[in-house]
């Protein structure tokens, strides 16, 4: 049973201070770059020490889920602040100023080839960030597809497509159609952070992805159809709670989950770990790993 942590990770207190200082003209961009690199190395070490199967760079340079792609694409820019779900964290809405085209893909992170995952917005989430000015298929074909090709060439093992809005009313049919536009050069997982996935699970069984990420703090296990045909990326760590999970509770839950999936289970968190502070996020990774080992042995 694999375990990994996609999404935007929490910044350390040192990085928080460095970026604050940068904004106020008290330090140079080079100093922030150095601290970002220290944070990245420490995060990778934490994941390796925990024995996670795929590594993430924590998107520590990403301001939000959409901005790096918006800035790397012709025809897109980012400006007004929009609240991200029901959190006190905001993203900048994507403004459409022309036909979108990825100018140059974002570089692959410095991680061991074949052992890293990337997180990107799902096409529908990206379209939602444009407030409907662009459709999901266009964004999938013109921006996400070339980015996925580039990550594949850089040794990526899994693309996690983050889709926080689907369960709150976006159209799953549009999402499935947009996902068809993406290259099948490596496995795709559709992750539904901080959402009750119940209303969309049946439809997503048909989606061209290998795994579906489910927040099991908001989704009842009873809502998961028997013999679900996709790998379940089980969100068993609550990324919005300061409470540290008990690995025994997670193991007990996973034992109930395993018989329901015909394509396997992997363990992850229910959303980006940037919603807790870095020490708590780090401890949650350790608990995730602690929950996984005995389950794996039992399996």
């Amino acid at each position: 049973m694999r375990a990994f942590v996609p999404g935007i990770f929490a910044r350390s207190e040192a990085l928080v201070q460095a970026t604050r200082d940068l904004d106020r003209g008290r330090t140079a961009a080079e100093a922030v770059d150095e601290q970002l690199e220290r944070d990245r190395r420490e995060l990778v070490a934490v994941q390796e020490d925990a024995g996670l199967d795929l590594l993430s760079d924590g998107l520590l340079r990403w301001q939000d889920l959409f901005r790096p792609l918006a800035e790397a694409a012709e025809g897109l820019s980012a400006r007004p602040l929009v609240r991200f779900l029901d959190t006190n964290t905001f993203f900048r809405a994507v403004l459409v100023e022309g036909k979108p085209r990825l100018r140059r893909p974002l570089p692959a992170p410095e991680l061991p080839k074949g052992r890293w995952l990337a997180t990107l917005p799902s096409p529908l989430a990206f379209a939602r960030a444009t407030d409907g000015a662009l459709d999901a298929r266009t964004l999938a074909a013109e921006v996400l597809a070339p980015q996925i090709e580039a990550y594949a060439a850089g040794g990526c093992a899994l693309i996690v497509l983050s889709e926080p809005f689907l369960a709150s009313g976006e159209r799953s049919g549009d999402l499935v159609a947009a996902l068809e536009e993406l290259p099948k050069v490596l496995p795709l997982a559709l992750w539904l952070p901080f959402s009750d996935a119940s209303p969309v699970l049946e439809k997503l069984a048909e989606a061209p992805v290998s795994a579906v990420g489910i927040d099991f703090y908001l989704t009842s296990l009873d809502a998961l159809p028997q013999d679900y045909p996709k790998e379940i990326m089980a969100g068993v760590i609550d990324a919005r709670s300061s409470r540290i999970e008990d690995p025994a509770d997670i193991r007990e839950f996973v034992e109930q989950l395993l018989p329901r999936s015909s394509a396997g289970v992997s363990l992850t968190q229910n959303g980006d770990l940037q919603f807790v502070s870095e020490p708590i996020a780090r401890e949650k990774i350790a608990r995730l790993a602690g929950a996984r080992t005995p389950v794996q042995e039992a399996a």
Partner: protein
Amino acid sequence: MSSDKLHLLTHEVGSLAKPPWLVKASAGRPLEDEDIEHARRWGERLEVSGHEELVESLRTPAPDPEELGRWSSRYALRLLESAGLDVVYDGEQQRTEMYAWAVAHANGFEPRGTVRSFDNKYYSKSAVTGPISLREPYHNDELRFLQSVAQAELKIPITGAYTLAVWSYDERYGPQKGRLGAGVRREDELRARREFALDIARDLIRPNLEALIGLGAGWIQIDEPGASTEPDELDIFVESFNASVEGLDCLFSTHLCFSDYELFFPAIERMSGCRQYAVGFANYDTRELGVAGDKRPGYQVISRFRDLSYEPILGLGVLDIHSDWIEPAELVRDRILYALDVFGDPARIHVTPDCGLRTRSWDVAYEKLVRMVEGTRLAEHELERAHAAPAAR
């Protein structure tokens, strides 16, 4: 303000950046020449009485951080007064941050670290772990000091109950065990949040408000930037506001920002104790001049505030606080004229920035505020001209 001349009241909304000499000295970091030069330059520019004394103290090995906090309050107060605002405060110079300051003076909370809000902006976050109560009134010293040095009228910003609740982790009120795989029971979450927010309102905010009123506070702005976080909790926001202020003798207003403001309706129809809403709109607006609706997309929602039966004043946000771009006075004018046209009653419009300007440098904040006041005067002039010669419009 003369009784026969139109005067639109201008005010700030909350925070200003802290000067580098305060930040570094408070953190025990050494000051550099440019920090001391900042104090000298702004002291002269704002004509802060006795600022030479501050500059001298900054050259000493360990200046008193509390004294520096009071100097910073004087500077910020003068910055706002000098920009021409009618109602001011001190940009919250002596507070750590709007959430952290309140929680640090309350019982029942424990710190849980720093979380990003957006870009390189963060906030500290605590968890509620025990019974909530006021440890000590936490704006009294600040208010007493500002009353002794302010020339303009004061409005005290205070963080509201609902925002404190929704920005905290809950380790006390909601279900803590058995959540994994159980699915959400929203009614349980709502019950927990209501209990939490109302405890804060009654046992933390209200006694703090009473203390401020006892010192002579005439206008208190209850900041609720988190108010629309959960659209189905707006009733809880309203109940917590009402529980905070009901029966208290003071002008209460609230500040809302960076939300889909349509969400607040109809919930705030029951918030008649709120006499003014200071709301950020410029962030959503164009930079084009013009008073027609299509030029002012950020302000389309203001008619909802106009139609509230208890006729509150609208604090009209006209400065985008997330940009260094200085709004021309003419753009401020047109935003105001649009609002005046929608409201039809100048007495119900005040002019404000979208939010606190703490993410901008003092240079940028000052220029923005000066243009805001200029734009307000232009709008008054335009309105008076229109009234004097209605046929010419």
